[in-house]
C-alpha cells in the first residue's frame, strides 16, 4: 500500500530540495547591501503607503465571501467530471440545473452592486 505513494514522496523531496537549494545558495553567495528603499514591500513598482496592518475596506470582505461561495461549488464538479462519460446527457442536464441556480445568485449579487468597484 505504501509503495503506491513512494514516487510521490520522491517528488516531494526533490521539489522541496530544489527550492531550498536555490534560495539557500543565492542567500549565501549573493551580495547584500540593504537600503531603506530596497527594504520596502514590493508593490509592483509603486511607492508603498502606510502600514500593512490597517483596516481593509469592508467591500473586500464582500468579494471574499462571494468568492468562497462560488469557489466551493467547484468541488461538485470533480465527482461530476469523473463519472460524466457514463451518462453524458443526464449529467449535463443535472449540471445545467445546478449552474442555473448559481447563475441566479450571480445575477442577484451583480444587480445588487456586489461587484461594483467604486
Amino acid at each position, binding site marked *: 500500500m505504501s509503495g503506491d505513494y513512494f514516487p510521490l514522496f520522491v517528488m516531494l523531496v526533490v521539489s522541496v530540495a530544489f527550492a531550498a537549494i536555490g534560495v539557500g545558495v543565492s542567500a549565501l553567495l549573493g551580495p547584500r547591501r540593504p537600503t531603506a528603499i530596497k527594504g520596502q514591500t514590493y508593490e509592483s513598482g509603486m511607492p508603498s503607503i502606510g502600514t500593512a496592518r490597517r483596516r481593509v475596506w*469592508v467591500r473586500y*470582505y464582500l468579494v*471574499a*465571501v462571494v468568492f*468562497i*461561495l462560488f*469557489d*466551493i*461549488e467547484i*468541488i*461538485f464538479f470533480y*465527482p461530476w467530471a469523473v463519472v460524466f462519460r457514463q451518462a453524458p446527457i443526464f449529467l449535463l442536464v443535472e449540471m445545467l440545473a445546478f449552474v442555473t441556480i448559481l447563475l441566479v445568485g450571480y445575477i442577484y449579487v451583480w444587480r445588487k452592486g456586489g461587484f461594483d468597484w467604486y
Partner: protein
Amino acid sequence: MLTVTHFTVLSAILFSLGALAVLIRRNPLIMFMGIELMLNAVNLAFVAFSRFMENMDGQVFVFIVLTVAAAEVAVGLALVVAIFRARDNVDMDEIDLLKG
C-alpha cells in the same frame, strides 16, 4: 496499522478542540473557526467510515458539509461585519443586551 478507531478518536479530539474554542474564545471569528473545526472533524469521521466500510456515501456527505460550511461562513462573516459596523467591537462577552 491504522484502524477506524484511530480516525474516530482523532476526529473526536478535533471535535472537542473545536467545541473548546467556542467556549473559551470571545471573538466570534475565532469561535466560528472552532465551529468550522468541529465540522471538519465530522468530515474526517465521514471519510474514515466511508473508507473502511467501502461505502462512497460518506465522501459525498463531505462535499455537502463543505458547502454548508461555506454558506455558514458567508452568513457568519456578514453578521460579524454588521455588528462591527454598529458597535465597533465584536467581543461576544460585551454583547448582552438580551438577557433575563
